[in-house]
């Protein structure tokens, strides 16, 4: 008949992408006659912001305004090949492919501009505002639109670029078992506080504090959006959601929205987020990506917090009231970890 507070911690290393079969992404960039650029990708933006971040990357690399770049992810039948949007690989893999493609397109654009200005392409710079001019002589200038039109209608050049980022298949060394399944790692640490009701077995997550290391945050607003939404989803998977509550038995599994338990806006815990930036050497402008890592540390942290609160170690998710109550019953009552520790002096249990 009491609420028990507990605190749990978890830290993770999260690999970006995977190469258990090779992990390629392709990008194609071309200019239209109006000097605007289209980036063709086949991985899908499902709300995580991949179109926004690849658009930024393309604009930065091309040296043109972001408004002059359109990212087309419409059709995997006709677009360049991509493994897909999964494994937190979007920013890193597609971003690198876009850089490669945009560099090639930029070099053709500068050649076209050089021919018009009668200078060497290596002397040209872009101002990011739609102009190309001779380094040190801004009055010798041509717009990207004029360069694109000259290429298209006068010079017969195709301002376009091809990009691929490939992590080759890593074979397992038969002698040592050694392989290299991933390239770069992101990291996270998360602390949650819970309240456990020892009468009902309900677990409420009341506070979350997190630090996520994502390489460079290429778009800080999108990064925070991912972290906030993803951590909430992790909390939801820790304490609420399952399709098979008696796995592997399908009994009582949800078959529709009425039966699938999901927290609503009234079940929010405050979440204090710190983003740590350590640019990755092989990342596009240092970016790794938040991706699935948003959710992952929350689950073990909640389980640890429940253990801290009532002394019950749950090893199957989600942490349902039934599991908590059975655990409390098996222990003969709630056994907060603090109480256990002070009773058994010093010897620390698994945190």
């Amino acid at each position, binding site marked *: 008949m009491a609420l028990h507070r507990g605190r749990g911690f978890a830290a993770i290393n999260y690999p970006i992408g995977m190469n258990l079969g090779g992990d390629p992404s392709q990008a194609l960039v071309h200019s239209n006659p109006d000097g605007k650029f289209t980036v063709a990708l086949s991985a899908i933006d*499902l*709300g*995580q*912001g991949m179109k926004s971040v690849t658009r930024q990357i393309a604009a930065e690399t091309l040296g043109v305004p972001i408004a002059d770049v359109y990212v087309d992810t419409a059709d995997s039948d006709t677009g360049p090949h991509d493994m897909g949007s999964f494994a937190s690989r979007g920013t890193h893999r597609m971003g690198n492919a876009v850089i490669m493609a945009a560099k090639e397109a930029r070099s053709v654009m500068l050649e076209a501009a050089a021919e018009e200005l009668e200078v060497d392409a290596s002397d040209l710079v872009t101002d990011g505002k739609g102009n190309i001019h001779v380094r040190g002589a801004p009055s010798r200038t041509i717009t990207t639109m004029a360069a694109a039109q000259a290429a298209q209608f006068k010079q017969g050049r195709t301002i376009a670029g091809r990009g691929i980022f490939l992590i080759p298949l890593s074979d397992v060394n038969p002698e040592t078992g050694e392989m290299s399944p991933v390239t770069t790692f992101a990291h996270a640490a998360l602390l949650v506080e819970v309240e456990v009701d020892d009468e009902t077995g309900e677990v409420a997550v009341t506070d979350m504090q997190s630090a996520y290391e994502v390489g460079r945050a290429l778009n800080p*607003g*999108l990064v*925070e*959006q991912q972290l*906030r*939404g*993803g*951590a*909430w*989803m992790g909390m939801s998977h820790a304490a609420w959601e399952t399709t098979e509550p008696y796995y592997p038995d399908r009994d009582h599994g949800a078959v*529709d*929205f*009425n039966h699938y338990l*999901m927290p*609503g*806006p*009234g079940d*929010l815990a405050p*979440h204090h987020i710190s983003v740590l930036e350590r640019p990755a050497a092989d990342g596009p402008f240092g970016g790794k990506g938040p991706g699935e890592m948003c959710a992952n540390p929350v689950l073990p942290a909640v389980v640890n917090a429940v253990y801290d609160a009532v002394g019950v170690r749950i090893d199957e998710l989600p942490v349902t009231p039934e599991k908590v109550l059975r655990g409390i019953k098996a222990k003969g009552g709630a056994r907060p970890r603090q109480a256990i520790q002070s009773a058994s002096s010093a010897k620390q249990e698994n945190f």
Partner: protein
Amino acid sequence: MAKMPVTLTLNGMERAGFADPGQNLLEFLRRGLGDLSPKYGCGQGTCGACTVTIDGETQLACLVLAETTEGRTVGTAAGLANGAELDPLQTAFMDHFAAQCGYCTPGMLVSARALLDRNPKPTREDIIEAISGNLCRCTGYEPIIEAILAVSEGRTGP
């Protein structure tokens, strides 16, 4: 059974169409009148993606028979913007990153607009209550609550 003629006012314009027997308002709006802003999520009144207003009250279009809206006034997310001029809620949703995949967004906007129309200065708890019938998978709700609060307090920008 014959189709039923239904005339209603949709986002300020009189619209008419033929509803199939037993057709719900969501299907009638989407297939009959071509307003794709209300979304089909669950079809059983749980997710809120099809939230519309009928005579100013929020309703779940999947649970309403189309023929019962004869002569009534229906509002959807497609009617929030005035031409190119967005509703302040739409702008705030963008500024606060309150949409990700976007599937819940039209229903959220309709619920939020109805709340602000009846209570221009809601508390955080009022907002949570007002959107508690709208499920969101992506955002964790906090950015949505923040966006609605910002509009009610007259704040603009992120």
